[in-house]
């Protein structure tokens, strides 16, 4: 009934390559997160404080990033821009698509965080003679950071897992590399099972690190 013969040897032999690819996955995910955080913060502040064309630009970004499949966004930066003669490397396609997507999601997290801080915090800070900038950086932002901390962790996880779409544009990150070896050896099940475990471990490590960091950062 069940006569599949597992062959793990090819997987073990190429494990170093898979781990190298895992590092690439991690690299692109972290870079996309950093870019996403910076842009997301800007988008949130624009949406909170500005009107006119900048507001519409930021809002459109958030809407497109959140309301369309991540895969389509990836294809846009890959084949979509390619149609206009702009050919990005697979690495850049994945990085820009992930950054675009993360910025959209994070913008809404940040916006919610800012809205959660009562206006009276700003008022009392200003009443002490702080400049708007001081009040923002010393009083508002640290509180917002705490509110968005766990959503950001979530987004990192999502980013790591979503980077696997990269294999569809020929990017040899963890999934792309797995696909490559799987089709060369025909040990498809074994390769993807092993890779799933690697993803699981990466994400688990991120979550544990995040929890340890949170305990050190947030004493209140």
């Amino acid at each position, binding site marked *: 009934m069940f006569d599949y013969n597992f062959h793990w040897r090819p997987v073990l032999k190429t494990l170093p390559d898979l781990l190298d690819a895992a590092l690439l996955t991690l690299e692109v995910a972290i870079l996309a997160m950093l870019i996403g955080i910076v842009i997301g913060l800007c988008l949130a502040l624009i949406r909170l404080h500005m009107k006119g064309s900048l507001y519409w630009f930021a809002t459109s970004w958030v809407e497109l990033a959140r309301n369309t499949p991540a895969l389509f966004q990836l294809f846009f930066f890959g084949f979509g821009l390619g149609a206009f003669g702009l050919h990005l490397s697979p690495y850049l396609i994945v990085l820009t698509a992930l950054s675009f997507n993360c910025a959209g999601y994070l913008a809404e997290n940040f916006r919610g965080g800012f809205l959660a801080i*009562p206006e*009276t*915090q700003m*008022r*009392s*800070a*200003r*009443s*002490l*003679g*702080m*400049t708007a900038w*001081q009040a923002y950086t*010393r*009083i508002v932002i*640290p*509180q917002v950071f*705490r509110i968005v901390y766990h959503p950001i962790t979530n987004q990192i996880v999502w980013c790591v897992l979503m980077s696997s779409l990269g294999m569809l544009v020929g990017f040899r990150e963890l999934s792309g590399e797995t696909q490559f070896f799987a089709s060369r050896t025909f040990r498809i099940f074994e390769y993807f099972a092993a890779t799933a475990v690697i993803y699981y471990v990466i994400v688990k490590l991120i979550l544990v690190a995040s929890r340890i960091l949170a305990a050190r950062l947030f*004493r*209140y």
Partner: protein
Amino acid sequence: MIQIRDLHKYFGPLHVLKGINLEVKKGEVLSVIGSSGSGKSTLLYCINGLETIQKGDIIVNDIHVHAKQTNLNQVRQKMGMVFQQWNSFPHLTAVENVALAPKIVKGKSKAEARKIALSQLEHVGLLDKVDAYPNALSGGQQQRLAIARALAMEPDYMLFDEATSALDPELVGEVLDTMRLLAEEGMTMICVTHEMSFARDVSDRVAFFHDGVMEEIGSPSQIFGAPQSEHTRKFLAKVR
């Protein structure tokens, strides 16, 4: 000295302050009473420059608060403000709450700022809570923390905006005691309050606000003993 001349304030079409004239001398304690929506709190926000004004003038220590060239951040250092919602900074410990503004606004060293903070925490009776975060403090303690935070800037004036209104009844006393202590030390204070006993016992003068107008101002015995205005009489009859 705080001088207010023909002050008008609008929120959109709403005329909130209708020509207020008022002087508060150094060392004086003025209580402002009146029903909600009469413009008492707005007056404090205008004095502090947290709200813009549409007409008139507010002069604090010879500085026109609402003049274009005025550096509000400097003026505000002279005026400590305590809000109804105590607004402790939740991410900072008690001592950090108090030390922050002296450090970043006045440029004191870390050690100096901490020393100032500790002495102000002692002042308001919170020396045993130095390293506590606000969420571990009661409402009364947080309000005293807010007072210490304002005092740490060594203000000439203290503005209290219904400092006890949001507190549980059993916590009101400790905050009033702290305010009383400041009054005895000679701090110049404007207290918007619903605590009639405080207004009567502690203040030098009491002002009654009704519908954006300062209807009456005088000594506590005058206002509480022989109010002239019909509105004052009605208000006092209700709160007694």
